[in-house]
């Protein structure tokens, strides 16, 4: 099938979703990120790869954390960065998404980092922009959040380099989670043999097993002997009623407590894309434990975003 994010010779043109990316492109991004991890530890935290380029963060949906990490990543690559928060209220006042984009194209930006609350928004923009502009999806609706998926597998690779010998569990609101979809595609592409999703039926998409995952409704059974536990944020703001009775009951059944974590392998790592709802999906005793790699995820997130931007700008091998 035609893949809108690759050039005709198989190079990365846009980063829209993990699905459809060949393994070699994924590995290229991860390896490139590896070389950027050290940039943050230097006195001068800058490399000149994007000097003279303008990166525009267009956020149609609010996000401080993701926008900040993209901003830092671009600045460490010496790009000029513009942040634009087009909140959905001004969208509903009538300006169509492509009108906003057209204005920014006219300002000669080189790269768009886009977040939108609708699935497919990044694809729409990528289809619309001229050839010299790359689009990075920073989250579209429930569909995809590819840099998050990449930084997650990057983190796993750091702690558990034997990817082809891992058991990974994703726990929580898979239905509304673009992070879960990206993680699942990244893990399957990199050859992780067993991916489990653990959630009540109301928080799983129909036919989720077609993504190549094993479905568990019982968290204790699902966590048995896993190497990686990836917790998902319970997106309560997207919850349109009747999916769960209460956050308390959710914590009791699907919250990650030390007792439940004890069922996983003793050296299992715990991940969370943030922001965490402590006491809803994760117990503070787990979140702050030595098994949690939640803050390293944030650190690596910057390296991953630098790698993606550098590759898209043609500045990295």
């Amino acid at each position, binding site marked *: *099938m*035609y893949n*809108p994010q690759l050039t005709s010779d198989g190079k990365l043109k846009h980063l829209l979703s993990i*699905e459809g990316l060949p393994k070699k492109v994924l590995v290229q991004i991860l390896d490139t990120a590896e070389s950027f991890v050290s940039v943050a530890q230097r006195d001068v935290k800058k490399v000149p790869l994007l000097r003279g380029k303008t990166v525009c963060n267009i956020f149609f949906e609010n996000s401080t954390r993701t926008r900040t990490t993209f901003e830092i990543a671009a600045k460490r690559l010496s790009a000029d960065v513009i942040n634009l928060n087009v909140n959905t209220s001004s969208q509903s006042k009538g300006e*169509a*998404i*492509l009108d906003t984009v057209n204005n920014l194209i006219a300002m000669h930006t080189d790269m768009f980092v886009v977040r*939108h609350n*609708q*699935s*497919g*928004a990044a*694809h*729409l923009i990528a289809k*619309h922009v001229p050839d010299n502009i790359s689009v990075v999806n920073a989250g*579209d*609706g*429930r*569909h*995809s959040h590819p840099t998050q998926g990449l930084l997650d597998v990057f983190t796993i690779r750091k702690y558990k380099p034997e990817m082809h010998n891992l058991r990974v569990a994703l726990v929580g609101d898979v239905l509304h989670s*673009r992070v879960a*979809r990206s993680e699942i595609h990244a893990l399957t592409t990199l050859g992780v043999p067993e991916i489990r999703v653990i959630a009540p039926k109301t928080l799983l*998409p*129909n*036919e*989720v097993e*077609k*993504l190549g995952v094993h479905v568990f409704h019982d968290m204790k059974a699902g966590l048995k002997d896993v190497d990686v536990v990836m917790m998902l944020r319970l997106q309560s703001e997207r919850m*349109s009623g009747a999916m769960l009775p209460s956050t308390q009951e959710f914590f009791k059944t699907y919250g990650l407590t030390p007792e439940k974590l004890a069922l996983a392998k003793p050296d299992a790592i715990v991940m969370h894309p943030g922001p965490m709802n402590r006491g809803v999906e994760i117990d503070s005793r787990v979140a702050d434990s030595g098994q949690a790699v939640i803050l390293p995820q944030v650190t690596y997130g910057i390296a991953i975003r630098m790698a993606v931007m550098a590759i898209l700008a043609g500045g990295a091998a």
Partner: protein
Amino acid sequence: MKILIKNGRIIDPKNNIDAKQDLYIAAGQIVGIGEAPKGFSANQTIDATGLIVAPGFVDLCARLREPGDEYKATLESELRAASAGGVTSLSCPPDTDPVLDEPGLVEMLKLRAWRHNLARIYPLGALTQKLEGKALTEMCELTEAGCAGFTQADHPIIDTQVLWRALEYAATFGYTVFLRPEEPFLAKDGVAHDGEVAGRLGLKGIPSAAESLRIAAVLRIAQETKAKIHFCRISTAEGVALIREAKKNGIAITADVSIHHLHLTEHDIGYFDSNANLKPPLRTLRDKDALCLGVKDGTIDAICSDHAPVDDDAKLLPFAEAEAGATGLELLLPLTLKWSSNHKASLQNAIAKITSEAAAILGINNGNLSVGANADIAIFDPEAAWQVTPTALKSQGKNTPFINMELTGKVIYTLMNGQITYQDKMK
């Protein structure tokens, strides 16, 4: 004006004719088939060698966008599209702005269409006022004004008591109620089939059960009220099975399917192609196969275009925000033919689905070539291939999942009321 159509292969499903014969037209009517009426001398002769001469097509669902949505399409542009597609009778749903819930609006629409003299239109009146699903419309008045039946278009009634009463009232007068079966709560905010693709793309799904539950409910109410129900645009295998069973049990119902659902599945959404945002949503391969078989075995009586021209701006949006619908009038013939060749159905059977069967559902005496009938005729080349491009389409709506594809089956002449209203440029 007297016209002779000679050397064509006449296919008239209603009269069970499939033969090479000449057709004679005078004063807007068919006056002879096979042999000339006494003293007939043609003013004009159409040579239909190698072509099929069929009744003008009858489309059960075509949105003309008037009144209210003239920036999407106009009566004139869409009636021209109908004519180019060989469609001479069409039924239009009432989801216009304002809604067709008053006799004056229906009369006005019919009058304006009549002036264009391109296709006969049979509006469906709103079943409830403003399609709100609360209060009944004046169905008798609306029928007098020219409504061929009543419908809620894409606004299913939520309150089942209102649904019951609406069907009861329509049954009192023998009016046909056209319902697109969808359980509104299960379908709420959904934009794609609740399956693999919606899960992967992160789109809100509409389960198949949204259709089958509503069919089951309506069938039960129809049994009680004896209402004449026509199910519009069935999309699921379960739906086909329920309708087949109901027909076997003698419940008087009919059903149609759109051209899109006979050929496309959820996978045709690809990477968020908003042209594939349709109501009902495209479903699975299994559903598509069941629909095709349902048409073949007669469970599904008719094929409609579900014509819904949408302006570009309303499609250049993220998938879920894009307006649903596709242009279809000019694709009705080629996609019906494609169904017949894919499923080894006879041409006569295929043409029946867009002529006599559809006409019977609307209760109109078109869609046949009987002597004395209106001379509404589609003459087409079943082998001619053409590419569905924006310029090839007469409709103002260029939105279709089939855009840029090559289809086979091309209308060469359309006659309405004994006059040539469309002629292919090549001829």
